C-alpha cells in the first residue's frame, strides 16, 4: 500500500507508535472499568499482581505466553506474504489431532522426549494440512483467504466435535475428551528454569513447549529474513506484481506460506494438550488463534515484537483471572474487550496517531527532517 507517510526513525516506528496505540486501547478499557463502577487503577494493580506476584502466577503467565507466541507467529508469517490467516483457531484445533494421536499411540511405550518430537511433527502436520486447503484455494481458484479460513474455523469446530464424540472418546465416558495420557504423553514442567530465578512454579503448567516456542520464534526470524523462501514471501507481500515479474512462483509461495503458518498454529496444541491437561478436550483452543491476530499486529509481525506482545497477552489472561476473582463485576471477558481494542488501535487504526507523532518526532530531530525533504 502506498501510504504517503514520512519515514520515521526505528525507535518511533517500532517503539513509540505501538506504545501509543496500546496506551489508547488500555485507556478505553479503563473507561469500561469505570462504567462498570470499579477503579481502573485497582484493576491494573490486580492484573499486574495476578500475573507476576508469585512464581506460580508467573508460571501461568508464561504458560499462556507460550500459546500466544505460536499463534502470533502463525499470523505474522502469513502477514509477510500479504495473506491474512484468520484461521489460526481452526488450525490449532485440528493440530490437536496430531498431538492426541502421537500421545495415544506412544504414551505407554515411549518416554516423553521421544513422544514430544512425534507430537510436534503431528501437530504441525495437521495444522499445515488445515491451512493447505485455504492456501491452495486462494492460489489456484482465487477464493479469498480470509473468507475461506473463517469458514474453515467453523468446519474445524464441527469436525473436532464429531471426532471427539465418535472417535477419541473412550467407551463409557460422557465428557467429550480423550483418555488421560500416561507418563509418555506428559511434558515436564520448567521448574528448573524458574528456580534459577529463585521462583517456584507451583501448580502452574509452565512446560517445555515454552522453549519450543522460543525456538520457533528464532526459526521464523531466520526464515523470513535469512532465507530465499522468506525473501520471496516478503516480495509477494510487498508487491505480487513484482514477485511475478521476478519469476517467483506465486501459487507455490502462497501454499507454502499457509502451510508454515498453519503448522505454527498447530504446534500451539502441544501446550494445553501435552503440557496442561494431558488429554484433548472439546474447545481446548479457547480463542488463542484469534489472540494471535492481536499479538502479530502488536508485535509488528517480527519475532522480537511478538514475544513481548505474547507476554503482554499472557499477562492479560493470567492477570485477568485474578481481577475476576478480586472484582466480581469484571469477568474474564474484559480481556476480550482489551484484545479487540488492541486489534482496533494497533491494526485498523494504526495510522490514526501517525501524522501527529511524525510531526512531533521529526520536529524534534531537524537532521531527519532534512533527509526526509531530500528524499521526497
Amino acid at each position, binding site marked *: 500500500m502506498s501510504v504517503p507517510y514520512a519515514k520515521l526513525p526505528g525507535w518511533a516506528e517500532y517503539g513509540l507508535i505501538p506504545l501509543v496505540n496500546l496506551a489508547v486501547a488500555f485507556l478505553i478499557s479503563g473507561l469500561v472499568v469505570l462504567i462498570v463502577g470499579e477503579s481502573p487503577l485497582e484493576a491494573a494493580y490486580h492484573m499486574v499482581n495476578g500475573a507476576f506476584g508469585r512464581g506460580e502466577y508467573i508460571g501461568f503467565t508464561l504458560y499462556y505466553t507460550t500459546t500466544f507466541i505460536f499463534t502470533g507467529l502463525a499470523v505474522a508469517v502469513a502477514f509477510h506474504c500479504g495473506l491474512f490467516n484468520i484461521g489460526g483457531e481452526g488450525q490449532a484445533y485440528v493440530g490437536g489431532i496430531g498431538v492426541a494421536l502421537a500421545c495415544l499411540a506412544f504414551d505407554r511405550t515411549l518416554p516423553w522426549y521421544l513422544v514430544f518430537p512425534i507430537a510436534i511433527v503431528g501437530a504441525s502436520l495437521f495444522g499445515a494440512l488445515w491451512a493447505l486447503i485455504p492456501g491452495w484455494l486462494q492460489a489456484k481458484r482465487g477464493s479469498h483467504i480470509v473468507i475461506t479460513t473463517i*469458514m474453515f474455523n467453523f468446519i474445524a469446530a464441527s469436525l473436532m466435535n464429531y471426532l471427539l464424540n465418535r472417535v477419541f472418546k473412550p467407551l463409557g465416558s460422557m465428557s467429550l475428551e480423550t483418555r488421560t495420557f500416561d507418563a509418555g504423553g506428559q511434558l515436564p514442567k520448567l521448574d528448573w528454569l524458574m528456580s534459577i530465578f529463585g521462583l517456584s512454579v507451583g501448580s502452574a503448567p509452565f512446560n517445555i513447549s515454552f522453549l519450543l516456542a522460543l525456538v520457533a520464534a528464532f526459526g521464523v526470524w531466520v526464515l523470513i529474513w535469512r532465507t530465499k523462501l522468506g525473501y520471496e514471501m516478503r516480495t509477494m507481500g510487498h508487491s505480487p506484481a513484482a514477485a511475478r515479474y521476478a519469476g517467483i512462483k506465486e501459487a507455490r509461495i502462497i501454499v507454502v506460506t499457509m502451510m508454515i503458518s498453519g503448522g505454527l498454529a498447530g504446534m500451539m496444541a502441544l501446550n494445553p494438550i501435552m503440557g496442561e491437561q494431558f488429554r484433548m478436550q472439546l474447545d481446548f483452543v479457547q480463542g488463542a488463534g484469534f489472540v494471535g491476530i492481536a499479538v502479530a499486529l502488536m508485535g509488528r509481525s517480527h519475532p522480537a515484537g511478538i514475544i513481548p506482545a505474547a507476554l503482554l497477552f499472557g499477562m492479560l489472561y493470567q492477570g485477568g483471572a485474578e481481577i475476576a476473582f478480586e472484582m466480581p463485576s469484571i*469477568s474474564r*471477558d474484559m480481556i476480550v*474487550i482489551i484484545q*479487540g481494542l488492541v486489534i*482496533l488501535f494497533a491494526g485498523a487504526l494504526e495510522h490514526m496517531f501517525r501524522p501527529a507523532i511524525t510531526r512531533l518526532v521529526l520536529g524534534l530531530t531537524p537532521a531527519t527532517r532534512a533527509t526526509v525533504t531530500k528524499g521526497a
Partner: protein
Amino acid sequence: MDVFQVFIELAQSTVRVSTPLILAALAGLFTERAGVFDIGLEGKMLGGAFAAGCVAYVTQSVAMGLLAAVLVSVLLSLVHGYASITQRGSQIVSGVAINFVVAGSTVILGEAWFRQGGRTPALSADGRFGTITLPFADSLREVPVLGPLYSGLLSGHSLLTYLAFLMVPASWWVLYRTRFGLRLRAVGENPGAVDTAGISVIWLRYRAVICCGILCGIAGAYLSLAANAGFTKGMTAGKGYIALAALIFAKWRPTNILFACLLFGFLDAFAIRYQSFAFPLIGKVPVQLMQALPYILTVILLAGFIGKAIPPKAGGVPYVKER
C-alpha cells in the same frame, strides 16, 4: 403426523431461523457492494441485540428497544467506517476488532447492570414483538392444503420477520432502481470513476455503512426481542458469519440472498429437529456435518466449483483520492 404437517412445521422454523440471516446478509450487501468488506456483521448484530434487550427492559417499550439496537449498530458501523474509510486501515482487521469488543463488552456491561450472568432480564409481552396473526388465519385453518399454508406458514410471525422478507425486494429496488443504488454499486466497482463524476466516494461509502448498521441492528433486535425474551450472552452464535457466507453464496445479489438464507436456515432448522434422521441411500448423517454444511458449501462455491462468486472489484481497497 403426516408428511404435509411436518413440512409446514419445518418451513415455519426455517422462516424463523432465516429472518436474522436475511437482515444481516442484506446489511453486508450494502457495504460490500460499496467496496467496504465487513466481517463485523456478527458483532454489530450482537451489539444491537444487547442494546435492544437492555432498553426494552428498562423502558418496557419494544419500539425503544428496536431504536436502541439500530443506534448502537449504526455507531459500531461508523467505527468500522472511520477505520476503513477515513483512516484507510484494513477492513478485515477492523471487523475482527469490532467483533471482539462487542463480544466482551456485552457480557461485562450486562453483568454489571443486571447481574444475571450476562443476560438481560426476561422481557414481558410489552417489551417484545408479538406474533402477528394474519386476517382470517384461524377460520381458514381447516381448508385443505392452502389453509395450513396460509395460517401455519404465512401467518403467526413477528413484525420483523415480515419486514425482513420485505427488505429483500426493497434492497433490490434501492440498489438497482435508484440513483443512490447505482452510485453505491459503482463505488464498489470503480471508485475512481465515481470520484471523477464529482460524487464523494467517502460520503457514499459512509452512507452504505450506515445502511448496514441499520439492518444489522434490526437483525439483532429480532434475536433479543422477537426470537427470545431478552438478551443472552453470545446469542448470535455465529449467525453473522453464516450471513456472511450466505452473502457470498448469493454472489452479492439480493434475490439470491433470500434463497441462500432460506437454504442455510433450512439446514439449521433441519439439524435441530432431526438429530438422528436416516436419509434414504446415505443413511444417518452426523449432526455436525449438517451444521458445517453452510460453510462447506460456501467454500466450494468460492472455489468456483459451482458457478463463480465474483466480489465487487474495489472491495477491501481503501480509496485514495490523490495518486
